[in-house]
């Protein structure tokens, strides 16, 4: 069996008395597009944040491309990883946030060249070339000199996607990236994600409320409930014939609201 790109091995996360992720097992194959849905508090955002090392693990191990992310092997044993190891593995992962988190004091271009120059040590010319190409790909070539405050929400989110891609990650995480957008701006961001999925061999995990998009785009949909995967399957399986009661409940509520 080919090695999964991302593997969660009995991962647990607690916030005080609350268990947010409960011994989660999850395998994501290379190039797979996984949509994660579920009610708030089900742990779905935590999954992404843990891969991105924004949250600490309480139990279990996360593997990226076969290598442990949160731990490292020393003398054949698994010990908690040191900062250098984490950074090394983290380099394969990129994330786009719900609230964009663009650097407000930098232009769109500068946002996309900052990390390549300081972390990957690219020369300015190279970094700007790469950034320019990516901004063109997301349809914002003419906005490279603009500041985030001069861009619409949809444009900012597209810059955020270009910024993450500039680091050439193998796994891209999308955390409810359209939830903070006005409805008419959602489409342009989804289009970029669609394009990404078609043209690149990226492994993508996205937490989303856009059920229609998940249905059409994802290879697999995972429904999270109370820190565990209650049900998962292909979109047609999960949306068309949900086996779990909770899944049915959730889908009904979402469709009513939409």
């Amino acid at each position: 069996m080919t090695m999964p790109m991302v593997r969660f091995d009995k991962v647990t996360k607690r916030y005080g008395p609350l268990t947010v992720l409960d011994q989660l097992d999850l395998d994501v194959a290379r190039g797979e597009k996984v949509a994660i849905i579920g009610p708030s508090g089900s742990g779905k955002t935590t999954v992404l944040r843990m891969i991105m090392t924004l949250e600490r693990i309480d139990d279990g191990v996360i593997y990226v491309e076969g290598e442990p992310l949160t731990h490292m092997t020393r003398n054949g044993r698994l010990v908690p990883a040191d900062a250098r190891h984490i950074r090394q593995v983290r380099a394969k992962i990129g994330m786009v946030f719900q609230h964009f988190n663009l650097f407000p004091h930098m232009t769109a271009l500068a946002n996309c060249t900052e990390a390549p120059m300081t972390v990957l040590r690219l020369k300015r010319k190279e970094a700007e070339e790469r950034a320019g190409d990516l901004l063109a790909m997301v349809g914002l070539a003419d906005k490279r000199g603009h500041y985030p405050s001069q861009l619409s929400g949809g444009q900012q989110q597209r810059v955020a996607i270009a910024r993450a891609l500039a680091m050439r990650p193998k796994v891209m995480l999308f955390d409810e990236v359209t939830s903070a957008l006005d409805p008419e701006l959602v489409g342009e961001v989804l289009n970029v994600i669609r394009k990404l999925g078609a043209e690149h061999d990226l492994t993508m995990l996205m937490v989303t409320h856009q059920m229609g998009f998940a249905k059409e785009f994802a290879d697999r949909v995972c429904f999270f409930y109370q820190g565990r995967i209650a049900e998962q399957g292909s979109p047609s399986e999960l949306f068309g014939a949900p086996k779990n009661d909770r899944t049915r409940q959730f889908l009904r509520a979402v469709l009513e609201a939409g």
Partner: protein
Amino acid sequence: MGVRSLVAILALTIALIAVLGSQPQWAVFMPGLLEGTRITVMVALLGSALAVVAGLAAGLARLYAPTPIRWVASTYVEVFRGTSALVQLFWLFFVLPQFGLSLEPFTVAVLGLGLNVGAYGSEVVRGAIQAVPRGQWEASTALNITRPQMLRRIILPQAFVAMVPPWGNLFIELLKSTALVSLITLGDLAFRAQQMNQTTMRTIPIFTLVLLIYLAISLVITIGMRSLEGRLGKGLARGRGAR
């Protein structure tokens, strides 16, 4: 109030000083007062420079330094905020000599006021850095940027812009505190005023001019800080778009 209105008021104030200061009855005080103003401005400038250095050092230390250094910084801040500037000036002026260290009044003035305002400044620094949205830290982590680079290129530049208005207020407080150095025999504006008042008892002309001069310097500081804020904040619109 916009920068332009402030500049207008400054112009008016200076005009008023010039007009009143050329009245025959009032003109006699001007040379002495202007000499005192020079000292006041010098103390204010040097004191402010020291305050910024001390404030940045203490603020960053309280956030990121190892525990013993953090403790030193916290003690410095609590002591200098908990006692007033005058007490600190008197301590430096009267008590230090008893430990064998006799400083010039000018040095005492700059040191005392600089450290005093620096203590308040450290809180401004801390607050501004902590006010940078969490998302900026997270996005930088996601891009695998190292901590020192994160601070230097992403966090501090944003914090600096937020710091400017409160630092402006602190500089004005420092300016007002310079009047205290008259009480440790330094010949600043307040000293000259008191001196002339003792000899001539012409309170109203002297103190009217003095108050106007302080007001003028105060306005210069405010205008300067507003302009700085405007230039630094390029791109960082007030009430920004991105969160």
